[in-house]
């Protein structure tokens, strides 16, 4: 296989869980809720997804189970931060710690178990093309669905009434409330929908990407996804690009090592965070950018006054 082609191929599959989780968090944040529980939700979804895949042998059931698990956790987070107005950051962090611990506990019996290999989907015809075939058209279906999802979200936020309402809730909950929209219920729905995507990302990791369950196996991908939403200035298409960029950095690091170029691994693994800080710094220099895409009421609780 051509080296460049395979580098592209592995970048796509490494970026997919990041993109899925980040798109989920994007939906959360557009509605005005920051979800720092992503890492814990991913872990829970990973262990539940793995367990379901192991007992049923069906990957789609595993994805569904992961999505439901994470959506339920997101719902719990929603009740706390939306109705009880607990601090979003502290509550999210607590959820991450909770998810990390509980997933390790649930997963004790699943350590060292193996899953059947769920094969990639070779797109008929296209996968036979030289270079482009191996690079682009021999992936798991989820890789393509993620791309479709990203562009679906572009359309959703910009072109649909529901998308506009969601954004309004995140921009100015008071105005949305005044117009008669149930702000808190919309936020809860957004949180759970986004949570479900984070869950699919977790299940993808433990069922497809590395068909194994290991304690703490997400290894910070939830945090990278959080950083990604900011890095992408809250735009779905850029989230997708950013995910491939961050996923590609890991692959590039191994690629360098194998070809004898020494780049400290620790340095490369902090790149996504450095890039995010740079974007944040650039954005704050240009207030226009922030106003354009950052949900204004992000992180702020809302209490309807009646």
């Amino acid at each position: 296989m051509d080296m460049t082609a395979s580098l592209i191929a592995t970048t796509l599959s490494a970026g997919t869980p990041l993109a899925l989780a980040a798109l989920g968090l994007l939906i959360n944040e557009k509605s005005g809720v920051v979800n720092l529980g992503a890492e814990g939700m991913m872990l829970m979804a990973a262990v539940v997804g793995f367990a379901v895949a192991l007992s049923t042998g069906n990957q789609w059931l595993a994805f569904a189970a992961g999505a439901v698990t994470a959506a339920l956790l997101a719902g719990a987070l929603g009740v706390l931060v939306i109705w009880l107005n607990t601090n979003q950051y502290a509550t999210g962090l607590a959820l991450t710690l909770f998810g990390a611990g509980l997933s390790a506990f649930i997963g004790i019996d699943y350590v060292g178990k193996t899953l059947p290999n769920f094969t990639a989907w070779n797109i008929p015809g296209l996968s036979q093309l030289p270079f482009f075939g191996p690079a682009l058209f021999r992936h798991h279906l989820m890789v393509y669905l993620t791309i479709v999802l990203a562009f679906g979200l572009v359309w959703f936020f910009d072109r649909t009434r529901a998308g506009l309402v969601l954004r309004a809730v995140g921009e100015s909950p008071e105005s949305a409330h005044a117009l008669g929209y149930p702000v808190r219920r919309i936020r809860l729905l957004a949180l759970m929908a986004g949570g479900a995507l984070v869950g699919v990302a977790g299940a993808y990791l433990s069922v497809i990407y590395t068909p194994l369950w290991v304690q703490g196996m997400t290894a910070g991908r939830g945090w990278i996804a959080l950083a990604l939403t900011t890095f992408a200035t809250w735009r779905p298409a850029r989230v997708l690009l950013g995910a491939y960029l961050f996923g590609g950095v890991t692959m590039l690091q191994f690629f360098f090592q194998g070809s004898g170029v020494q780049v400290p691994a620790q340095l490369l693994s902090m790149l996504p965070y450095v890039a995010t800080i740079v974007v944040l710094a650039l954005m704050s220099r240009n207030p226009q950018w922030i106003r354009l895409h950052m949900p204004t009421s992000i992180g702020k609780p809302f209490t309807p006054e009646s």
Partner: protein
Amino acid sequence: MFDRLLKKPLAALVAAAALAGLAPAAAVAAEPLKVGFVYIGPVGDAGWTYAHDLARKALQAKFGDKIKTQYVENVPEGPDAARVIRDLAQQGDGLIFTTSFGYMEPTLKIARDYPNVKFEHATGYKTAKNVGTYDARTYEGAYLAGVIAGGMTKTNVLGVVGSVPIPEVLRNIDSFTLGAQSVNPKIVTKVVWVNKWFDPPKETEAATSLVNQGADVLFQNTDSPAVLQTAEKLGKYGFGWDSNMRKFGGKAHLASATINWAPLYEMLTSQVLSGTWKPAQYWWGMKHDTIELQDISPAVPPALKKIVLEREAGLKNGTLDIWKGPIVDQSGKTVLPAGKVADDAFLHGITFYVKGVEGQVPGR
């Protein structure tokens, strides 16, 4: 609080009583010897810790009601390790195995407080009055895996996923390469480091990247079966490491280089039981059946398999030395002159790649 205050002297008393039972004169005492194990990973990691736990079970089966084994898993290296080891000593364990390199200092520290308890620390190099060390010559398994890899490769590129660049791991990568070169001088070994002992997603990515760069036989010094799984997925070959991993990749699995700690554990335990235990440094390999090569795949042609079995026999009866000069490092410098056999001190201090390994040792 009171409970705490009382517990310590009480536990010490119990420990003393248990140990009194170990004195040669009272060797027939009914009180079983309590043997504790401290593990770095989960017993189900399918690798390092799993192998230790298999040996613990064998030990219990062999000695029956003369001993009572217990273990604590997932113990991080650091303050927690000291706490767990102290706890086992307090509970009256007469022999404690601490099975990870990073437990060295905690083991020595606790050993000072419990002079009557015997400690055995795996892979360390410091001993004390009541602390011995033990290790396995894993590089012998790596060498035999290399022989198979060298014979099986079509691209002449072998890929190794390295864990942490310490002498033990470098020795394994070098031995793997020497084994491969002994049957196929044209091979090169590419190494990718993940800087972790156990991180399956990262191991997967590293393995994929090696395959992308032309490697068609993979080997790893990490603890999970992820590399073998990746080989299976990509239609390449791989090996099991530390324990038999065939079930993780039926087609890809060429063989498993395993560690069987049972003979060593049995010897140490019977020494403690009979009161003849002394701190020593054991480094056992194929000769003592500590290192084994299991389940050679039917995909390995008979001629190659014959060579592998011959080499294995040679390691067992001591007629084959893996580290025998001339051995040349990457830069072309002769590190071991012709005819000279490396001693253990040399083997413990390997910090270089032999000729045939590509890339640079990190940090050097």
